[in-house]
């Protein structure tokens, strides 16, 4: 199962959901879907923008667990 650790990374960077959505350029609703692990797919462009905004690696956000 793939889980999203967006909230952990956001806490580390002390960034709010509003701020991140502005930087990444996706709506708050879509960001909430991603953060709450409801998303079924994520575009590379979105992933790219989030990593850039949070200055982190992909594996800091996405994790595979048994």
């Amino acid at each position, binding site marked *: 199962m793939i889980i999203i650790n967006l909230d952990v990374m956001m806490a580390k960077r002390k960034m709010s959901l509003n701020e991140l959505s502005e930087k990444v350029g996706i709506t708050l609703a879509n960001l909430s879907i991603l953060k709450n692990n409801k*998303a079924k797919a994520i575009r590379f462009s979105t992933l790219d923008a989030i990593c850039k905004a949070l200055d982190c690696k992909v594996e800091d956000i996405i994790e595979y667990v048994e």
Partner: protein
Amino acid sequence: MLKVSNKFSINLSIAISVLFFIACIAGLFIMPVLVPMLIDTPDNIGNRGDITEIGRVLVMAVSYLILAVFIFADVLMFRLLQRVKNGFVFTEQSVSLIRGVSWCCFAVCLLFAFLGLYFQLSFIVAFLGIFLGVCLRVVKNVIAEATEIKNENDLTV
């Protein structure tokens, strides 16, 4: 081909479904006159104008049942049209509405098949009923598939 705008098309469908509803309500009042007339008119393919008293009651009851099913299906269709108008087409509820209408078609088909015992031409209507029911089921399957795709698309960020 006559082509109209999408909005006009939806309004036209709504208008037709309302007209159909009015026709069904009118049918409720015309039925007590029409059905005995049909029973008493002998044709040369089955009805010899000698239907028994029980048969008359049965034909009357089944005719009313058919109208009731038609009205129910029309209400389902009207609700579906409202959903289309408001932009909630590809949802689980739409799929179940279409499924309901297709079951209505099969129910009407059974009822007409029963009427076929007295008026053999009814078998043709029953046959058409099955065809319409199958068509609607296929549409339902298509919409269900589209619903899944739309759901996945909505949940892609």
